[in-house]
Structures are given as structure tokens and as C-alpha cells.
């Protein structure tokens, strides 16, 4: 993929439609084709998570090690499904659509979550980003990162705002798919709890706690911080070029699960996750000209990258 560098003075001579066309052309270069990295990710992650159960139960690895691996597995479980939510692996009618759906559903097993619920609500998040009434992820809003973490912990309470926001969104949509999504989540929650009860009665309560229940909670806290809060809050604003921002993270793109370039995802959701950083580097001057919040990534006045 040949990345072009655009001179900011040249970009300033373009009118609105030319700039938009150029942005689309650049984005299109990064779309299409199967990203094998994003295919292998969910496969290895789910296999790893399944394998830690017998390894811990038969004392091949200690429970604390299994717990650490399970936390990583649960944290990594969401993003492949997120790709499937946007039909990035394959669109409906294409030969590999089955793979898109399989990854969408199966990658979420460690999180005990419904693909349909997350897809329906995530699409609404894209349509209504940062709208306090219609964005189902708006409950992640907080003044600080710690505030967001406390929000996430509060959202695990039986009467949580976040669960209600998702349910309200599905009820507002009231489509057959939204009804199926609610049914799916009820079935998954019942099966998940039944599994916990059976494990507890078989003398494996601690294993169930540390390999599944607690890793889900930690995984969701991490995901909500990097996927919801960092790219959108604080100071949530609406508008195509204002509702998401680029940011820098302490371990770079890796620790933020690729979210430093989340702005690219919101502008062009069909670009695979592993290509968004490269797409951001090429789109940076255009986005800077659009007034996007790119934090340390790009400074329009100087016209150079700050590292």
C-alpha cells in the first residue's frame, strides 16, 4: 500500500468536495481484502481461553496464571466481533459472510455477550455518537479516566444505567433483529449463570470466578476505557469530524487495542482495525485541516508530525 504525503498548502487549495473525495480515495485503499491478522486473532484467542480451563483444573498451570491469561483473553475478545459488526470480514451476499458471522458470534464467548446486541447498539453508537439521548455508549462519559472506571464498576450493579441504555436502544429500534438480540442475551446470560452454578457445585467455584466471571468484569472496564472513553470523552461533541479524536497511549497502539486511530474507524468504519494506524498517518493532514482533534499526532500550524 503506497502511502502518499500531502502538502498542507496544497490541501488548502482544495474545495470541500475535492477534499472529501481525496479522503475517500485514501480510505478506500485500506479497505477490502481479508486481514489474516484479524482472522487469526479471534481463533487463537478463543482457543487459548478454552484451553486454560483443563490446564487449570488438571493443575498443569496455577490458577493465578490462568486468571492473568483469562483477563487478556476477555479483553481481546471484543474487537474481532467489532470488525464483524461492520461486515469487515465479508458483506452479506459475499462468499465469506459465514466467516464474518462466525467470528462475530464465537469471538464473544469469553465475554458471554450477544453479537446481535453489540452489533445493533454499536451501529446506533455510530449513527448518534455523543448524543446523550441516543448514543447507547454515552454512559461512559466522565470527567476523568478514573471517573470512567468508576462508571464501569457502577454499571455492573443490578440496576445499571448502561444495561438500561442498551435495552432502551433495542426497544426503541423494535426491529426483528433487535428482538432477536434481546432473546439472545437472555439465553446467554442464563447459560452463563447456569455454568457458574454447576462449576460452584462441582467444587470449582474459584476457577469459575477467576477464569470467567472476574476476567469479564476487568475486560469490560478496560474496553470501556479505551474504546468508549478515550476516543470520545471528556467534552463529547457531535459532528462527523468532531465526535471522535486521535490520542496517544502509554504503550502506543498496542495497549489501547488500536484505539489511538479510532477517529479513522468512525469516519471509515470498513477499514480493518490493523490498518487504521497507517490510514491515520496518511489522512492526518486532511483531518487536521478539518479541525479534528488529533492530540499530539499532527500540528497543522507547523505542518509536521510531533514525536
Amino acid at each position, binding site marked *: 500500500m503506497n502511502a502518499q504525503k500531502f502538502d498542507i498548502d496544497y490541501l488548502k487549495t482544495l474545495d470541500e468536495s475535492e477534499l472529501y473525495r481525496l479522503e475517500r480515495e485514501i480510505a478506500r485503499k485500506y479497505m477490502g481484502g481479508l486481514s489474516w491478522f484479524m482472522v487469526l486473532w479471534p481463533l487463537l484467542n478463543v482457543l487459548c481461553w478454552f484451553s486454560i480451563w483443563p490446564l487449570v483444573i488438571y493443575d498443569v498451570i496455577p490458577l493465578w496464571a490462568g486468571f492473568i491469561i483469562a483477563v487478556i483473553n476477555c479483553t481481546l475478545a471484543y474487537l474481532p466481533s467489532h470488525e464483524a459488526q461492520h461486515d469487515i470480514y465479508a458483506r452479506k451476499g459475499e462468499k465469506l459472510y459465514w466467516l464474518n458471522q462466525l467470528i462475530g458470534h464465537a469471538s464473544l464467548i469469553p465475554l458471554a455477550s450477544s453479537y446481535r446486541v453489540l452489533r445493533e447498539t454499536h451501529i446506533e453508537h455510530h449513527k448518534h455518537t455523543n448524543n446523550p439521548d441516543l448514543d447507547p455508549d454515552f454512559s461512559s462519559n466522565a470527567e476523568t479516566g478514573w471517573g470512567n472506571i468508576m462508571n464501569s464498576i457502577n454499571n455492573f450493579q*443490578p440496576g445499571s444505567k448502561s444495561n438500561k441504555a442498551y435495552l432502551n436502544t433495542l426497544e426503541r429500534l423494535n426491529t426483528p433483529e433487535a428482538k432477536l438480540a434481546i432473546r439472545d442475551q437472555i439465553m446467554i446470560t442464563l447459560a452463563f449463570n447456569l455454568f457458574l*452454578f454447576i462449576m*460452584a457445585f462441582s467444587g470449582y467455584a*474459584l476457577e469459575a470466578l477467576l477464569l470467567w466471571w472476574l476476567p469479564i468484569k476487568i475486560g469490560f472496564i478496560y474496553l470501556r476505557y479505551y474504546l468508549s472513553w478515550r476516543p470520545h470523552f471528556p467534552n463529547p461533541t457531535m459532528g462527523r469530524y468532531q465526535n471522535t479524536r486521535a490520542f496517544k497511549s502509554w504503550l502506543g497502539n498496542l495497549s489501547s487495542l488500536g484505539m489511538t486511530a479510532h477517529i479513522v474507524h468512525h469516519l471509515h468504519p470498513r477499514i480493518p482495525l490493523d490498518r487504521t494506524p497507517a490510514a491515520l498517518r496518511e489522512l492526518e493532514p486532511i483531518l487536521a485541516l478539518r479541525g479534528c482533534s488529533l492530540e499530539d499526532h499532527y500540528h497543522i500550524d507547523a505542518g509536521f508530525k510531533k514525536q
Partner: protein
Amino acid sequence: MPVWFGLFFLGPVIAEIALLAAHNGVLPDSLNSLISNTHLRATCMAFGGIYGLIAFKTGRWI
């Protein structure tokens, strides 16, 4: 659901932690003998169930 969760999961988890602590000598002797002389699992399940009921009524676990 919180009541069931407390009764059938949280209770057994607390019982296992208490047993583990007693087994490893972490607890004082008086607590150790209390654990070995009671129906630990049933007691913990009852506690978990009541805690779940409170969580259900108040809408909060913590």
C-alpha cells in the same frame, strides 16, 4: 437473578475461600474451629442469598 447469583455462586465462592484460608492457616484458630464445626457451604449460601436479595432490592452489590 442477584438472589440466585448470591445463593448458588457467591455463597460457594465464599465457602471455598474460607476453606482455602483455613487450610493454609491464614485464619486465627478460633475462626478455624468455627469453620470446621459449621455447615460451611450451607451457611455461606444462605449469606450469599440474603446478600443477593439486598442487592436486588437496593439495585447495588456494593
